[in-house]
């Protein structure tokens, strides 16, 4: 993959890139399908139920059936909705979710773009999804959608700040924003040990960025009907759901790369297991954590949410930067 990246652009390798992107999309759709299945299964087990078990063996085709249902559903649009924006919003929400995956190094060689500013690219692009969410809320011409959309915007913008700040510690330690180099710098020790504070802040802020429990206020069913996508049905709704789960994949990959050493094995002796397996295991553990949290946590109030981001997470993240900077300066003999 990396040799391909360094070739001179031509029609031939453009086709290769296109095919690779299609393969990634198919893998991603498979991941989303079974992430939803296992979410329902795991939450079911934790609630003393057995979860979906009727469609196909062990219910394995449940999500396939659900998606098929969504795709053949009528595409409804509220009468006074803003036509153009209403159609644009799901695309605006989903396109960046897929685009951020380009910079993620799945193994040493398997990467779609080797950017020097990988972290910035990820965070900047994932910010565009907020725009899709606000657009959806506004264009639906529905007060619940609008409240959901604005809540989501407020939440995602607030939590983006501690999220970025918590990553700065890792960047300071590595001296690079390139995700591949960040992983390679973790050969001796994974970042979550020296950067524990940053890791904790990142985990909480990522949860809020993903709009997932316990920070799922934009979709609070019990108070907002369904949040910003109340008026959406059929494949447009499917796009929003897809964006949510693709971000879960992206954020899981980010946690793996930044704090758990990406494709690196736990111990060098275990390096006979291919890197992609290590990456997948770490990613799936993060995804499991999401389901586990969803089965456990209640939802905070809106005012608690905002003050938590600005009064707790941000100071902690800044403190982490300070500590990291002091330690690094001390080690390099500047103090």
């Amino acid at each position, binding site marked *: 993959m990396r040799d391909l990246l360094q070739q001179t652009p031509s029609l031939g390798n453009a086709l290769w890139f296109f095919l690779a992107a299609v393969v990634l999309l198919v893998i991603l759709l498979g991941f989303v399908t079974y992430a939803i299945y296992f979410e329902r299964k795991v939450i079911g*087990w*934790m609630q*003393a139920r057995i979860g979906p078990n009727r469609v196909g063996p062990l219910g394995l085709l449940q999500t396939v059936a659900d998606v098929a249902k969504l795709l053949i559903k009528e595409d409804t649009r509220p009468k006074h909705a803003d036509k153009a924006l209403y159609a644009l919003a799901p695309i605006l929400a989903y396109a960046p979710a897929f685009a951020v995956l380009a910079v993620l190094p799945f193994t040493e060689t398997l990467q779609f773009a080797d950017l020097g500013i990988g972290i910035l690219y990820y965070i900047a692009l994932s910010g565009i999804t907020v725009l899709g969410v606000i657009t959806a809320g506004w264009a639906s011409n529905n007060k619940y959608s609008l409240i959901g959309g604005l809540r989501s915007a407020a939440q995602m913008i607030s939590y983006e700040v501690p999220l970025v700040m918590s990553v700065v510690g890792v960047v300071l330690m590595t001296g690079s924003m390139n995700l591949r180099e960040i992983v390679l710098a973790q050969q001796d020790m994974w970042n979550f040990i020296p950067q524990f504070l940053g890791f904790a802040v990142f985990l909480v802020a990522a949860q809020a960025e993903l709009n997932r429990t316990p920070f799922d206020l934009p979709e609070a069913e019990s108070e907002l009907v369904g949040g910003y996508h109340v008026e959406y049905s059929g494949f447009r709704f499917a796009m929003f759901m897809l964006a949510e789960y693709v971000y879960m994949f992206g954020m899981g990959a980010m946690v793996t790369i930044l704090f758990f050493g990406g494709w690196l094995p736990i111990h060098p002796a275990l390096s006979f297991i291919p890197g992609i397996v290590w990456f997948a295991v770490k990613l799936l553990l993060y995804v499991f954590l999401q389901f586990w949290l969803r*089965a456990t*946590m209640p939802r905070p109030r809106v005012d608690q949410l905002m003050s938590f981001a600005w009064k707790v997470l941000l100071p902690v993240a800044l403190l982490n930067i300070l500590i990291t900077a002091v330690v690094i300066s001390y080690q390099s003999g500047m103090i």
Partner: protein
Amino acid sequence: MLGLAKGLGYTFKRMTAKKVTHFYPDVPFPMPPRFRGIQHFSPEKCIVCNQCARICPTECIQLTGKPHPDPEKKGKIIDTYDINFEICILCDLCTEVCPTEAIVMTNNFELATYSRDELYKNLTWLDDNNTNVREEN
């Protein structure tokens, strides 16, 4: 923070706990012994006293009798016996009032049909509904 860990620990342990789900349509659900299900009717026991039709709060029982075919014997035997399960509330009063236990409750309860007409059950159907008959009536 300890609370969060406790909560997570609890849900994690619950994952392997025994599930409470019943496999009802696949595995029949055993009803308690005093369950009031669809009635079973034995025409040979019936003396056409009409008490069940009169006690019925929703008036869902309709019956007709005819003279005993053996002219030596007195009394009547049952000719038609219909229960309308659209309105029957399975209240058990017909069973309680019946002097000969000709009409008894069973533990069967599956009454879903595609047509409302199928809910009019006649004498033969009620006679054939002889599974899971309640032990005490």
